[in-house]
């Protein structure tokens, strides 16, 4: 295989699919944790409640990225 053939795209489109799927959850998780930190800083006495909600939101968002990840294996 020479350099020219290397430049050709070989492999699986689902790799790109995962990259795309990770964008949204990446932003989402950033927002969730950032806001949780902000809220805790504003009202430290509510930190327990905030953390619970934070993990709930995190769980919902992260599953989207992970669905993209397993789609790579499933729809090969």
């Amino acid at each position, binding site marked *: 295989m020479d350099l020219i053939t290397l430049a050709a795209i070989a492999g*699986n489109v689902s790799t790109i699919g995962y990259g795309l799927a990770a964008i949204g959850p990446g932003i989402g998780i950033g927002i969730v944790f950032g806001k949780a930190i902000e809220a805790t800083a504003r009202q430290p006495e509510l930190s327990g409640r905030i953390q619970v909600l934070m993990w709930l939101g995190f769980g919902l968002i992260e599953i989207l990225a992970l669905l993209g990840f*397993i789609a*790579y294996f499933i729809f*090969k």
Partner: protein
Amino acid sequence: MQVLAVDGIKLFLPETYDVVWSAIILVIIAVFFYKFFLPKLQSVFDERTAKIEGGIAKADKAQQDAAEAKKKYEAQLNTARVEASKIRDDARAEASHIIADARSRAETDAAQIATNAQRSIASQQQQALVKLKGEVGTLATALAGKILGAKLEDDAVQSHMLDQMIDGMDSGDKK
């Protein structure tokens, strides 16, 4: 580059033996934690808490005891001090009493001795006077006899003369 040798979907299809082993392991671990590990650790925690609380209570009690003992000792010390001062006062009083006693006894003794001495002096004087009187009488009689001769051999005359002379001596003394 061969990336995926088998179907990726197989990753998500559980094998029977995998399920069996996972279930067995989960049950074993769960039983271990439920029945042995956590109760055991919890008992250690409880024991520790009890010990710490007991220790604090004990320390409190010890402090209380110490305070009580201190109070007791101080009270005792106070009584002792009072007693000591009392004893000292008593001793002082007794000492002065003894001194006074001794002094009075000594004074009495001295007075008695003096009286005795006076009395004995007086009696000796008396004795000496009586003796002297007798001897003077005899001497005078003898002397007078020698001077007057036999005249005076009669006892009656002799005593009459002697009395006269002594009276004269007495009146002479009184002068």
